[in-house]
């Protein structure tokens, strides 16, 4: 039975082609806006995710930089975090508290250096890590191997690219080479932004070399990175705080749970994505108003026809279905075309705002396209319900007499 009403709906759209096309265009724009914004938000989120290295299992312990910080530079009166240190005693406490998880003490300094002979002076960060812990913290190498002796080092991928450093290259440390020369044993794979150490533009050396070269002591640790393989990062964070910050007024350490921080970042991006998608949704609401308007026009133009239908035995629900079909045809057509075009929209917006389009064709992007298409169809049908209901409930006599 629905066949004849479906046919009437199709023909009515055809004879009002311009009006129907404009309504479809409204829905199409709405779908493109929603899906493109969703794709943009998703691309932003993925872009940030890829920049953050896999540090979701780390807890970072740094000297407390608020009032009453401790360490050689911060004896009891604030000071900047750069001259605050954790002591070996702090480290031992952390190590015991988090066992069997691995706690890695990190020393860090900026130093002048030269790559090869006669090259320009460079200033870069250097990290000193216990030789046995380097593998635990830096799991992936792009080339070469981990340092096997004190005069070997690892370099970050950006550093290697920028200064044309290869495995076997030699780097002289210090303005006049006063700290000695290091041989590059390996290149660390790009890690992006990270909560523990940022190695992409830095050098990583053994702690022994670091202490010998710079004359630092065991009590000059910049941070301790705990790699959590047993238990939850939040529990490890609580344990460390309990052990080291017993006095709430005079804290010793700041503890960062990287997983919680990551979650917070993702939640923020989720909110941003929802917000920009909602902005796209406004255009869909405008399109919905236009659908409502043309459906009301359609009903008003066909009052007599509705009266004839009702007088010869058409049920109310059948009259309703005719208008719902009409809106559904407009909605499905506009939304599907919009869905296809939104990949293009997402591509353009991402290219312009993020400078990359590598995250467009992902499952999550497809989700936003499906969401936009579904919302487009839904809003068309919802906006047609009242006009259809009004058409179905016209008095057959009044409708028949309508001119």
């Amino acid at each position, binding site marked *: *039975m629905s066949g*004849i009403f479906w046919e009437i709906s199709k023909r009515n759209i055809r*004879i009002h082609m311009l009006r129907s096309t404009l309504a479809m265009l409204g829905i199409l724009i709405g779908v493109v806006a929603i899906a493109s914004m969703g794709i943009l938000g998703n691309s932003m989120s993925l872009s940030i995710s890829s920049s953050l290295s896999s540090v979701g299992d780390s807890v970072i312990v740094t000297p407390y930089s608020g009032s009453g910080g401790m360490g050689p530079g911060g004896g009891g009166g604030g000071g900047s975090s750069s001259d605050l240190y954790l002591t070996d005693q702090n480290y031992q406490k952390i190590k015991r508290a988090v066992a069997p998880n691995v706690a890695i003490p990190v020393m860090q300094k900026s130093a002048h250096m030269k790559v090869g002979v006669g090259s320009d002076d460079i200033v870069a960060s250097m990290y000193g890590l216990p030789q046995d812990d380097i593998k635990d913290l830096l799991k992936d190498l792009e080339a070469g191997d981990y340092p096997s002796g004190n005069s070997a080092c690892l370099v970050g991928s950006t550093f290697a690219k920028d200064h044309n450093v290869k495995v076997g290259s030699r780097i002289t440390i210090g303005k006049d080479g006063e700290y000695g020369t290091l041989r590059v044993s390996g290149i660390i794979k790009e890690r992006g932004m990270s909560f523990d150490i940022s190695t992409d533009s830095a050098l990583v050396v053994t702690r022994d070399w670091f202490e010998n070269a710079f004359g630092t002591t065991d009590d000059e640790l910049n941070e301790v990175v705990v790699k959590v393989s047993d238990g939850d990062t939040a529990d490890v964070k609580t344990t460390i705080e309990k052990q080291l910050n017993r006095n709430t007024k005079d804290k010793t350490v700041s503890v960062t749970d990287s997983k919680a921080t990551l979650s917070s970042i993702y939640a923020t991006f989720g909110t941003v994505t929802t917000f920009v998608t909602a902005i796209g949704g406004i255009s869909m609401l405008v399109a919905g108003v236009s659908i409502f308007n043309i459906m009301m026009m359609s009903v008003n133009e066909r009052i007599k*026809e509705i009266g004839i239908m009702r*007088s010869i*035995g*058409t049920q*109310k629900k059948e009259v309703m279905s005719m208008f719902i079909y009409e809106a559904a045809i407009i909605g499905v057509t506009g939304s599907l075309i919009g869905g296809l075009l939104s990949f293009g929209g997402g591509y353009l917006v991402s290219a312009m705002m993020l400078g990359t389009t590598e995250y467009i064709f992902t499952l999550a992007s497809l989700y936003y396209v499906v969401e936009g298409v579904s919302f487009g169809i839904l809003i068309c049908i919802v906006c047609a319900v009242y006009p259809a209901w009004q058409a179905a409930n016209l008095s057959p006599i009044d409708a028949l007499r309508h001119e």
Partner: protein
Amino acid sequence: MAPVIQFKDVVKIYPLKSGDVTALDHISFEVDHGEFISIMGPSGSGKSTLLTMMGCLDTPTNGDIFISGLRTRDMSDTELTNLRRDRIGFIFQYFNLFPLLNIIENVSFPQMLKSQKQVDEKKTIEKLRAVQLDERLYTHTPLELSGGQQQRVAIARALINEPDILLCDEPTGNLDSKTGASIMDLMTDLHKNGSTIIVVTHDPHVAEYTERTIRIVDGRIAS
């Protein structure tokens, strides 16, 4: 056998701001199977209201209407709609065909409403032949047909579900006299074949074709 239509003391009052208007005032009559009746009366006498009551498009304020023995007062909107679809055929002055559908689809429409599936096109063609419509016009749309041809299509549509009653509202009112006469000849043929036909008209020439005339004046049956 119960009458096809039975009105028992039917009153229809339209409440208006300026005061109630009594369109039908205690009307009682019966129409038997196979009758060919005309309803006449001056403008505003209540004959159109009577037709809408017979067609179950409206309900009386008081009194009872029985269509094929069924009391309309107790029926839901769905039941009344089904009654119109299955038992009543409407023929209007302005033909009232669907401009978006072709002739075959227009005639099949009530059949599709009833069967809820594919229609029997043979039956549609049979009805169109019965109203003597040129076969070349079957795939045309109503606006491509003359008034007389459109009215023939409307009659075929009214007959498609084999109704108990044909209700005609000024069926020749929009046609020239020659075409009007041919339509009334067609009605006469249908009556001879057993159809119950009620024609509302103000044209005495149309009334001459019928067996009985009910005259309405001021909402009452005058004769």
